[in-house]
Structures are given as structure tokens and as C-alpha cells.
């Protein structure tokens, strides 16, 4: 297993103009160096809960926090620093995070975490594309200022039951170490935070995966004007199985619904992502473009908003994490 810190150190000397995919989606590489973004953790937990839990805890895996809350903040900070170091934004990214008792946890299954952009913005000053929703952190980065009437960019929730309920995943417990040496059978809090923050930065599609309310599967969300706008991530989804290999905004709603399950034909069309994928991946590309997760049938909260599981080596934005290999 490769630790997040190792990856940070590996990345350091390369000084190449790569950015998080969420930014690759829309930002041209305007400079030869990338500025780090400040990340602000806004703790939404009350006193003595979640990130403020005062329970004494022994140090673990390079995390010297002396309480459960401190270890959670340190591990979160570690993951957020890695992500923030790779993002070009002069506007601090504010993440409202909490440990939410409402997330389910049973003996054999649990929701570890959930996160996404707090809001999306369209037709803001300096927006590269009109009538397109951008996650607010990306909108802020593009315009160089905070979008009005927003104070949160990402909302993230984590499951506290892993630490407090011995029956939750049979007592697995979060691993708060920051050394990348996650023990078998324990979920890594650092890698989970990183995965969720990337979703929150915009690695997520707003397309309806199934019918809900007034939306049919395959439709984009409605804007305040009533028109349906694509999100910038979905704008770069391409289906290679249709004639002309169109991008998603060029498909009808019905075609886009079909595309949701077109498996290896569904790719991410960003040029930078394709170029980086060609050099970094041994599998998981189609015509030089990286495969998006589009299984049949659709998987709620997973399809499209992840890389395909065929990517090799595995990527943090794949939907399924296999068990760690035995030593």
C-alpha cells in the first residue's frame, strides 16, 4: 500500500502542471506552477462530539493526537493538505464536516461517509461556459473570489458508529494513522476523507441516475430559470458507442439515459486527463480516454461519479476498494 504521504513526497519534485481532475475539467493550465489552496475545516459537531470528542486515545500511525477528536482533526488535516496542495485556487476552500449519527452502520455493512459540493453556480462572472453548473469551490477558483451568499464549499459527513459501536462492522473502527499502513479490516479515515473531498471539489455528476420527482433518468437539473443545465463534469463525459461519439450535452435525455449503462464506452473527454491517463494507467482507457464507471444496471450514488473499476493501477476515485493485499 502506498501512503498518502509517500504520494505527496513522490509528487513533490515533478513540478508538472497537473491538477486535480475536478479542476482539469474546466481550468486551462494558465501558469507553469500551481499554487496551493488553503483548506478550512469548519467543524459542525457540537461540544464533545465528532471532531471535538474528548475521549483519550493512544497515538496511532504517526497521528499523535491525544483525544479521539484531535486524531480525527489531524487525519482530516493530513488528507485535506494533500488535496489542497494540488489545487490552484486563491480562495480558501471551506469544508463543513461532521460525524453524523444518522449514517447507518450494521454488523456487516455501513455507510462510511458522504460528501459533495455544497452548491453549484452557473453564469457567474468569468464562467468559462454559459448555462453550465460549476461546483462552488471551482467557481470561486475561476473567478478568484468567493461566490456571494455562500460560506461553505463542501459538506462532508462521516460515520461515528465505527468508533462507538462494537457491533458496527464487527468493531472495525476507523484507522486514524497518517502513515498509510492501514491494518487489514479497518477503513482508512485519511483515504476516505481524500475520496470524499475530491467528490466535494466536483468529481461528481448531477445527472439523474433514476427517475425522481419531476426528473427522469438521464436529465440534468433545472436552473432557477427552469432550463436544464449540465454540470461541468458531465459536460466532459463522452459516449463512444454513439455515432459521432458525442459529449453528453449533445445527447437527448433519452440517449443520455441509455448512456448511463454503456460501460466501457463511457469515458471522460478532458484532454489533460486523457494524456495523464495514458502515461499512468495500464488499463481502464478507451481510445486514449479514461473509462467512467457506467455499469448495467445503474448503481445509485456511484455510477458516473467514479472511475471505472478496470483502471489499473487502482485509483482513489474508483467506487470499490478491494481488500489490501496480504503482506
Amino acid at each position, binding site marked *: 500500500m502506498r501512503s498518502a504521504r509517500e504520494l505527496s513526497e513522490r509528487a513533490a519534485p515533478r513540478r508538472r502542471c497537473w491538477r486535480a481532475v475536478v479542476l482539469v475539467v474546466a481550468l486551462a493550465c494558465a501558469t507553469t506552477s500551481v499554487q496551493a489552496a488553503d483548506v478550512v475545516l469548519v467543524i459542525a459537531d457540537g461540544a464533545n462530539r465528532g*471532531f471535538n470528542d474528548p475521549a483519550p486515545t493512544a497515538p496511532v500511525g504517526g497521528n499523535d493526537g491525544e483525544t479521539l477528536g484531535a486524531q480525527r482533526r489531524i487525519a482530516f488535516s493530513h488528507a485535506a493538505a494533500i488535496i489542497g496542495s*494540488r489545487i490552484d485556487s486563491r480562495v480558501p476552500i*471551506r469544508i463543513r464536516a461532521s460525524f453524523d449519527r444518522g449514517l447507518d452502520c450494521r454488523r456487516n455493512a455501513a455507510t462510511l461517509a458522504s460528501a459533495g459540493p455544497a*452548491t453549484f453556480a452557473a453564469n457567474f462572472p468569468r464562467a468559462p461556459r454559459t448555462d453550465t453548473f460549476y461546483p462552488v469551490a471551482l467557481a470561486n477558483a475561476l473567478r478568484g473570489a468567493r461566490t456571494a451568499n*455562500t460560506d461553505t464549499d463542501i459538506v462532508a459527513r462521516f460515520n461515528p458508529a465505527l468508533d462507538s459501536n462494537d457491533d458496527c462492522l464487527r468493531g472495525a473502527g476507523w484507522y486514524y494513522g497518517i502513515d498509510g499502513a492501514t491494518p487489514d479490516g479497518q477503513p482508512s479515515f485519511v483515504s476516505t476523507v481524500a475520496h470524499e473531498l475530491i467528490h466535494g471539489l466536483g*468529481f461528481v455528476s448531477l445527472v439523474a441516475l433514476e427517475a425522481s420527482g419531476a426528473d427522469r433518468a438521464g436529465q440534468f437539473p433545472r436552473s432557477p430559470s427552469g432550463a436544464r443545465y449540465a454540470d461541468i463534469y458531465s459536460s466532459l463525459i463522452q459516449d463512444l458507442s454513439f455515432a459521432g461519439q458525442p459529449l453528453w450535452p449533445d445527447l437527448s435525455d433519452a440517449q443520455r439515459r441509455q448512456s448511463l449503462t454503456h460501460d466501457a464506452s463511457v469515458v471522460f473527454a478532458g484532454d489533460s486527463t486523457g494524456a495523464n491517463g495514458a502515461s499512468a494507467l495500464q488499463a481502464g482507457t478507451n481510445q486514449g480516454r479514461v473509462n467512467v464507471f457506467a455499469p448495467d444496471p445503474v448503481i445509485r450514488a456511484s455510477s458516473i461519479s467514479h472511475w471505472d473499476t478496470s483502471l489499473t493501477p487502482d*485509483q482513489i476515485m474508483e467506487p470499490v476498494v478491494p481488500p489490501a493485499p496480504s503482506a
Partner: protein
Amino acid sequence: MTTAAAIAALSMAGVFGVGALRAVSADADSAQQKLYLDPQTGEVLDAPPAHADGNQPARGKARQRSAPAEAKAWINDEGTEMLTPAPDAQPDRRAVRCDDGTLRMGHASGEHRAKGSDSERDALCDRPAS
């Protein structure tokens, strides 16, 4: 195969330079009690330099919905079209405990996807590692 904790070259930038990371209690925010942590060590630091005016959170009445039951489209004070997604539209990360003691993280599909069901667990545990 390496674990997906890898923020591999595909999706990550190569330039290093950690930005300041701050932890702020939402409850304490209004009282200006802010905790600044070293992102590497978690140690408490002195406050970093103030940011440019344009980097401060917008003042005035905040209309950002924190948790609407359904997606909400709205217009902010600048006339920008906004969309606040419903919480259940956010991607979540599931984990199941397999009989061999391993954890699998992901989502089951189709008829297996009922959260917490045996079929969800079986579907994920039976899935070969990629």
C-alpha cells in the same frame, strides 16, 4: 495491486506547496475562536496571514441552503444562478464486512443494493478484486 488510497498521477497535481489548513469550529466561528493546525503534524499554529478581501466568505444574508430535502435552484445577490443539491444525491461510500474478515468498500448494484442487506454484502464480497 496497490490500494486505491493512491491519489495517483492520474488525478493529482505534481506541484507541491501545502496551503495553510485551518480547523474552525462552526460553533466557535462566530466568536472568532479559530484553531489553526499544521497539516503535517496537527500541531496548533499561530494564525496564518489574513487573506485578501476577495477571499473572505461573503458577508450579508446567506442564502446557501445547508440541507434541503430536494435540490433547490436559487439566485444569489449577484444574479448568479445557484443550485443546492439534495443531501441524498451526494455520493456516499459504503463498506461491508466479508466472511473472510476483509472489508470491501463500494456499492452493490441492481437488486442487491438495498443498504445493509445480505445481498449487498454478498455482491460486494463476491466481486473479484480489480
